[in-house]
């Protein structure tokens, strides 16, 4: 690239714009694009045409239509999703994440902020700092953005008055004083007229600062972004032949050099960087953000999900953390439910064990909560199914951020930023038991298992389970029965029938079942257990081959006709809320070990099917 001096020193700035349509956000972006000649003639023609059809600016060009690309957005005149726009000047390339400003789109703003290193926050000069200004600023802070440009817009409507601007600037600086920003800059603009957007305004000679574009072209955002040494989360292991063994990944934190002493986390093995290369070309260093291939001097065990980190800069490793979590799904988060976790390149299972509080993002007040709804921001404790290496998000976002994925729908449901490892996870070493499960099971002369009977109320789960229990007992097996109804009278007396309580109910039954399996027993669980993810959680607690999911499958009509406890009749009258099959969903197993057609199979025959299943195993 030596022959391209005009490109060589060009950096890339990713920034976020926040503010509602009324603040003139789209107008500002449209103005930046058109004044830097980034709108082509054919696009301008289309924009003029669209402005006539959908526009909200009488007789003029509605720049909002340039960024609102989806049909629904254009018809409704609102921004629904994050839009990315691109422009370049002689000095820099820019990626703009344009996000909707309303509270119901917090999810989108968080998404846009996650990759931005600067936030442009708009306020209307006539209105000053509003609740939403504070909300946007808090989200920028939460996502680790360290630079803010406050655009005080519509200065033309306040007569370009300096004191109006200074009052807003002073108020905003006071508000952001205790937030951890490296720079906060205010600029008075009129996006509509182009004042202080791409050039200094003649209307405001009293303003000595830079115009918006000048500021964006020159602001330094890279320095001090990370507060850790080098990290290389391993994406992919390269083994083209017997000789070469390379580890591909993108560097974070600080520069990495050949010869650097490193540790492989989470296990902590020590080695050195032998070489760093891209396409065979040896590099003298790799800087943050650079995708490289490294080789190591020792033949240590390294796989995708591990982190190669500089030996002088420790990472935390734990299976329990405190984190800020933003909920992104219409389906609420339920404590105890397991989700897929993706943290850098590592995958694990995670559940929220303790929902400490949510944060009212307008007032920053802490609010007690039992579940998380869409757009909620919360402080939580999470538990992982294995030890994971990470940093605090504020120190290194690349190794401190995670997403949560629903195990059933594969939807991305949560975004998290780790605060710290929980001390109890650091200090607690698992009590090593000398008598293990195999010893206990051998003593009983059987293979321990959980037979998990699931199905609608009245399907015949307990009836079949009881017959199986008796037959196993007669055959000399050691069994124990955990009946959902009975457990609710004791261990789970404190739980109701909300989704959250149902998840906890199943979690406790599953954990008790696991203890019995540890003791060598065959456990029969009879519980409606309507949610697939909870039954999967129970399965995951056990070793492969120990869990038998038995779907006692009776149609709702059959169950309702039987109605042994009169519950369906009451549910139909509305006397019982959250009744499975009526007012609460039942998710049938996708691949149970056994499905019993309870409409046509009598309980004795059903029990024999279960025994045959066990005998086969």
């Amino acid at each position, binding site marked *: *690239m*030596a022959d*391209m001096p005009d*490109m*060589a*020193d*060009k*950096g*890339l700035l990713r920034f976020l714009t926040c503010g509602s349509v009324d603040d003139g956000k789209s107008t500002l972006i449209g103005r930046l694009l058109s004044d830097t000649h980034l709108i*082509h*003639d*054919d*696009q301008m023609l289309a924009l003029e045409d669209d402005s006539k059809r959908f526009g909200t600016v009488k007789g003029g060009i509605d720049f909002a239509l*340039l960024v609102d*690309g*989806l*049909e629904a957005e*254009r018809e409704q005149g609102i921004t*629904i*999703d*994050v*839009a*990315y*726009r*691109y422009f*370049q000047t002689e000095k820099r390339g820019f*990626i703009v994440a344009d996000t909707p400003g309303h509270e119901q789109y917090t*999810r*989108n703003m968080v*998404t846009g902020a*996650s*990759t931005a290193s600067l936030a442009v926050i708009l306020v209307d000069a006539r209105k000053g700092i509003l609740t939403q200004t504070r909300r946007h600023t808090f989200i920028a802070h939460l996502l680790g953005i360290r630079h803010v440009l406050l655009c005080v817009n519509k200065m033309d409507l306040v007569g370009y008055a300096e004191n109006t601007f200074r009052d807003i600037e002073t108020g905003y600086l006071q508000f952001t004083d205790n937030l951890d920003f490296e720079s906060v800059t205010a600029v008075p603009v009129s996006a509509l007229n182009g004042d202080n957007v791409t050039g200094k305004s003649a209307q405001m000679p009293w303003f000595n600062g830079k115009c918006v574009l000048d500021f964006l072209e020159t602001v330094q955002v*890279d320095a001090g972004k990370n507060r850790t040494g080098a990290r290389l989360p391993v*994406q*992919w292991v*390269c*083994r*083209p032949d017997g000789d*070469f063994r390379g580890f*591909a990944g*993108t560097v974070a934190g600080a*520069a990495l050099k050949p010869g650097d002493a490193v540790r492989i986390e989470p296990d902590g093995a020590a080695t050195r960087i032998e070489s760093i290369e*891209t*396409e*065979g070309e040896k590099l003298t260093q790799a*800087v943050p*953000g650079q*995708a490289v291939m490294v080789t190591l001097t020792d033949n240590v065990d390294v796989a*995708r999900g591990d982190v190669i980190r500089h030996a002088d800069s420790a990472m935390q490793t734990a299976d329990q953390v405190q984190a800020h979590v933003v909920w992104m799904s219409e389906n609420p988060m339920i404590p105890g439910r397991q989700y897929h976790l*993706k943290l*850098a*390149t590592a995958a694990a299972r995670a559940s929220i064990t303790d929902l400490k509080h949510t944060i009212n993002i307008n007032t920053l007040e802490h609010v007690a909560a039992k579940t998380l709804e869409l757009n909620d921001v919360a402080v939580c404790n999470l538990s992982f199914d294995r030890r994971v290496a990470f940093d605090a998000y504020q120190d290194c976002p*690349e190794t401190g*951020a*995670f*997403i949560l*994925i629903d195990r059933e729908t*594969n*939807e*991305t449901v949560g975004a998290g930023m780790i605060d710290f490892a929980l001390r109890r996870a650091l200090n607690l070493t698992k009590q090593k038991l000398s008598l293990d499960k195999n010893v206990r099971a051998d003593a009983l002369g059987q293979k321990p298992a959980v037979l998990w009977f699931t199905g609608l109320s009245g399907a015949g789960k307990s009836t079949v389970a009881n017959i199986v229990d008796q037959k196993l007992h007669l055959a000399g097996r050691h069994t124990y029965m955990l009946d959902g109804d009975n457990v609710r009278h004791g261990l789970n007396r404190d739980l109701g029938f909300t989704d959250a309580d149902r998840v906890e109910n199943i979690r406790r039954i599953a954990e008790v079942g696991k203890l019995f399996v540890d003791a060598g027993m065959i456990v029969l669980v009879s519980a409606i257990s309507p949610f697939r993810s909870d039954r999967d959680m129970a399965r995951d607690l056990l070793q492969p081959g120990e869990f038998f999911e038995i779907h006692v499958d009776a149609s709702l009509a059959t169950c309702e006709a039987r109605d042994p406890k009169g519950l369906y009749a009451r549910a139909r009258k509305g006397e019982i809320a959250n009744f499975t099959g009526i007012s609460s969903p039942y998710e049938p197993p996708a691949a149970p070990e056994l499905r019993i057609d309870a409409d046509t199979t009598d309980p004795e025959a059903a029990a024999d099917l279960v025994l045959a299943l066990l005998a086969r195993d």
Partner: protein
Amino acid sequence: MKYLRMNSLTNLQRLESESIHILREVAASFERPVLMYSIGKDSSVLLHLAMKAFHPAKPPFPLLHVDTTWKFKEMIAFRDARVRDLGLDLIVHVNEDGLKRGVSPIKSGATVHTDVMKTEALKQALTLHKIDCAIGGARRDEEKSRAKERVMSFRDVNHGWNPRRQRPELWNLYNCRVKPGESVRAFPLSNWTEIDVWNYIRAESIPVVPLYFAAERPVVERDGQLIMADDDRLDIRPGETVRTEMVRFRTLGCYPLTAAVRSDAADIDAVIAETRAATNSERQGRIIDFDQAASMEKKKREGYF
């Protein structure tokens, strides 16, 4: 790229690293990915990045070209030469059923031809080869509905895109989970612009189809657009004459549906200078885009790239 600025990357280096990161995530996360190779400049950059991402190994996925049988002759020659030089696997898929039905851009029109020979054909190929991730060279700056598309863009079992139910995409943590039959379209060049692509082609000396550079070519003028007579299948209408003009292409597709522009830009520096000064966007040469308002979003919902 030879050198680094003190402690941070240049614009192109950042884009390159991000794209390589995405390609590696695809390789590590999916069972049967494929790289959509459309032979254009964006595909050329994509292929170059894939070679870099996995070096010294070969990219761990094959290339797929959906051939409408109406591509420029030079494109097909270029494709075969590249694949041979790089030693890669190439799957070529043609919608044989569409061919039998006689679908063509001349007889059937742009919309039907694109629908059958591109969108339909692509879906056939993805289903046939059980592809769970198709890597494409689309960029967000190309078109408004693309501006809102994810890097890992989820497709349902019918290959459809639902713009209102897209997965949130944060940081560089891409959700690569799909169920059987579902798939993802991965777009490593999402954040590149047209000028970035050209600058990178120059910086890395990436081979591209010569049609991008101006030369004397046989064209007819039709509805204000210059269409190249690439073979004798083009219907010359009454009043039209084939003339030789100095032209080049900003975008490549099926030759009767891709308009040339008059240009003297015969090398990469001239092309970059022309691109910088351009007053029209590159998609203006795509006849299919003018068919209806919001047409790209509609096509994408139906499974188009």
